[in-house]
């Protein structure tokens, strides 16, 4: 499926860029929680919005907590960092301690999640921009909670009826806890084509 949208080489390049971005973010996160953050190997897939929705729904039907951040530049889209509700609660707890929160994310917890996402997503944007030598600006992060269909609702995004999705699965572990985060970029097919052009230009520099 990925190969139809992005070649294996381009998927590999993006995986490595996200890997570097997540590595940088992990350094910041480890300083926030004061312990080592262990990262899994990233896996990137490119698919249509409807396929992504099906994949996520099969994975979990429960509530997810996500932070959404718009990005714009040579290519644009909406970036999401997803956590299962348990993961986000645990992550927040590790950073600010147990504030006796109820079922819903309170304001402080939302701020923590936004800050964590800001670090992770901007590390990924920054790495893509730096390595591909292009410019990417990011918008203000906002927290979205609910089931996957609600979080990824197309109504508020100007991405057409069936945009393309780059999904990056990467787990990070804290001591004794596994907190799973997933990054997704929703982009129009036009924007993906612009990204492919940047990847082609970059690959040409290093082709043997």
């Amino acid at each position: 499926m990925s190969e139809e949208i992005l070649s294996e080489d381009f998927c590999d390049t993006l995986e490595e860029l996200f890997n570097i971005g997540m590595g940088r973010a992990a350094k910041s996160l480890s300083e926030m929680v004061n312990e080592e953050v262990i990262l899994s190997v990233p896996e990137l897939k490119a698919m249509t919005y409807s396929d992504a929705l099906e994949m996520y729904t099969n994975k979990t039907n429960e509530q997810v907590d996500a932070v959404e951040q718009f990005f714009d530049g040579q290519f644009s889209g909406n970036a999401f960092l997803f956590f299962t509700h348990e993961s986000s609660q645990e992550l927040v707890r590790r950073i600010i301690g147990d504030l006796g929160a109820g079922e819903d994310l309170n304001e402080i917890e939302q701020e923590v999640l936004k800050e964590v996402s800001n670090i992770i997503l901007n590390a990924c944007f920054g790495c893509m921009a730096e390595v591909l030598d292009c410019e990417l600006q990011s918008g203000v992060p906002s927290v979205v909670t609910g089931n996957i269909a609600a979080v990824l609702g197309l109504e508020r995004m100007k991405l057409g009826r069936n945009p393309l999705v780059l999904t990056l699965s990467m787990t990070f572990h804290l001591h004794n806890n596994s907190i799973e985060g997933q990054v997704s970029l929703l982009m129009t097919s036009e924007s993906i084509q612009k990204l492919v052009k940047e990847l082609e230009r970059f690959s040409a520099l290093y082709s043997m």
Partner: protein
Amino acid sequence: MGIKQVLIVDDSRLTRMIFAKVISNHHNDWEIFQAENGTKAIEMAKERQFDFISLDHNMPDMTGLDILPTLKELQENAHIGVFTANVQQVLLSRYEALGKKCYNKPIDEQKILEFIKAGELA
């Protein structure tokens, strides 16, 4: 300088490609070998001796820290450098304790040449 043997251990094709390109540009007679995971790296290290080994940390089958002791044992004369996206101090300290320098990704020509130069001076 004579012909050198270089082993690039990294699951990222991008990193292997950049590394190989930079080495070829500066030393077009050097032999370059690539391993996309730790298992293959150990297999290759059993087959021949290398002068330089670039080692990734985060790989699908094992980490750079997992295979470093075996590599050191098999490749006593190789100059081994760790190229990693994971730049947490605790991890860098573990490699330092094993006598290995870490180079932060993304890799570029300057870092690769610095690694080669350090090996030549060692």
